């Protein structure tokens, strides 16, 4: 049987031009373990002679290389440089730092990063150097390198040059509208819980606070990775809502209103069977309020709908009205009662 299967037969087989008997023979031939290598060798050769598309391997290699090298740095405190000649860069950075001494090392955060912060009850929009728009919700901070998305050269040394990654670090909640760059530079959002969001030109909201981490995608595509756990990257499609719970489990569900998660941009609050407990968490995170709910039954009551509110008091009034309950506020302490 073996001798009837040769390269020509296999090429015809790949092209779908063999008789059923020949196909059977190929199947038998494949049962021989050694022939499997041969099979893939010929498949490769056949594919090369029948290419369906062209693709630039160099760009793809750079992308994967910078992803791999970049992520291995994420766990260390200063994720400064993600690129191939990492050793050389570090050497340069190290000697410069030594030269400038410990003092400037203390201020390196200020020197190297731009940080945007919002206080309680405040939202703010920023345009990043690459033209991407970010809107920060209350009590959040966003940090990015000063050379973000640009190329800076010192002779042969390049900072952020070959790297095809724009990296921002987010604590809290923000809505992103990422600009797609002609050189396909990726945009990555790092969150404290280790979930990384890689973007390919897109609109999405990232929520990363103590109680959980969520990502909602409105358009385009993003990829989620958890570099600390060995999990395969997860590709999100528009309308997907990804949640990372306290145990570090990543789950994906469809949501009909992905824009609802960014309604705070219009000073609106959107609830969908949202419990008073969750609303209390939100009030704590966004306005720094300490909320007490008299009993569990009350905490489990829910609200649905989208409502405008400009500040904490308006939200409190709204919630009290909708649930027909009372609240009292002294400074930052709020108590809900029946």
């Amino acid at each position, binding site marked *: 049987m073996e001798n009837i299967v040769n390269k020509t037969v296999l090429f015809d087989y790949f092209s779908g031009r063999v008789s059923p008997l020949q196909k059977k023979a190929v199947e038998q031939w494949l049962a021989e373990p050694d022939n499997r290598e041969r099979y893939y060798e010929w498949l490769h050769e056949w594919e090369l002679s029948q290419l369906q598309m062209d693709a630039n391997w160099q760009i793809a290699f750079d992308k*994967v*290389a910078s992803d791999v090298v970049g992520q291995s740095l994420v766990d260390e405190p200063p994720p400064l440089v993600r690129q191939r000649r990492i050793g050389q860069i570090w050497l340069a950075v190290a000697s410069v730092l030594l030269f400038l001494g410990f003092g400037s090392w203390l201020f390196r955060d200020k020197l190297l990063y731009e940080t945007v912060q919002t206080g309680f009850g405040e939202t703010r929009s920023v345009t990043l150097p690459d033209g991407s728009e970010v809107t920060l919700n209350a009590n959040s901070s966003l940090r990015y390198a000063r050379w973000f998305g640009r190329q800076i050269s010192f002779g042969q040394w390049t900072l952020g040059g070959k790297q095809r990654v724009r990296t921002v670090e987010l604590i809290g909640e923000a809505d992103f509208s990422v600009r797609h760059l002609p050189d396909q530079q990726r945009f990555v959002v790092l969150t404290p819980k280790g979930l990384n969001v890689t973007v390919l030109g897109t609109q999405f909201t990232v929520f990363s606070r103590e109680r959980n981490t969520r990502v909602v995608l409105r358009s385009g595509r993003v990829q989620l990775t958890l570099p600390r756990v060995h999990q395969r990257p997860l590709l999100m499609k528009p309308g997907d809502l990804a949640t990372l719970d306290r145990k570090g489990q990543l789950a994906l569900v469809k949501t009909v209103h992905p824009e609802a998660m960014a309604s705070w941009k219009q000073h609106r609050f959107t609830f969908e069977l949202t419990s008073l407990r969750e609303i209390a968490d939100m009030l704590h995170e966004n306005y720094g309020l300490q909320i007490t709910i008299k009993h569990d039954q009350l905490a489990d009551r829910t609200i649905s709908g989208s409502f405008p509110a400009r500040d904490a008091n308006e939200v409190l009034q709204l919630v009290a009205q909708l649930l027909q309950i009372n609240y009292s506020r002294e400074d930052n302490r709020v108590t809900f009662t029946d």
Partner: protein
Amino acid sequence: MNEAEGLPLQNPENRLRPLHPTDTPVAIVDNEHIVRKAFANSPEQGFETLFRLYYRPLCSHALRFVYTREVAEDLVGEVFYQLWKTGGYVAVQYTYRTYLYAAVRHRAFNYLRDELTGNRTPVSLDNVPELLLSETPQTLVEYDETYQRLEKTIQELPPQCQRVFLMSRFENRKNQEIADELGLALKTVEAHMARALQQLRKVFIGLAPLFFLVIH
């Protein structure tokens, strides 16, 4: 099957020590030689060589399943990424070529099946070495038949429908753009797409039970 499992494990030294080609009774051919030499220098050079040799044909092969350029490139990129990130490249049994093709085909097949049948296979689980061990002649033929049937199905679509489908998938164009360019109503374009996908779904409906049998 026992033989298949036993064989690569029998003399792992030969497979795992590509750095000293003299030890190896040259079972490793042509490209593999270059790749292993490059890996001996550094993982970076190794991967650069792998990309140079295999990225293009792998994308092209993945495209036979998914019919979308970006998806094909992403799939292939992820396979490389995983191999690199997990350090699996240190101990690749068989050849790199076999590893890459098997992983890409597995992923491309699952991607399309999930897309057409509306399933969502949890993405975390594919352990390529295990995958290679569980590969049987039937699964290999199954994959080959799948892309061949897809091609046949697309070829047999009415010309306009085929054109719309390829513009939408391969060129990644929006329905409205296609409607404008071909001078069709948006509804017509949508109907063409629905019809094409309906036909493609049939490829999997006939296949699914068989495929599961093979896996278990």
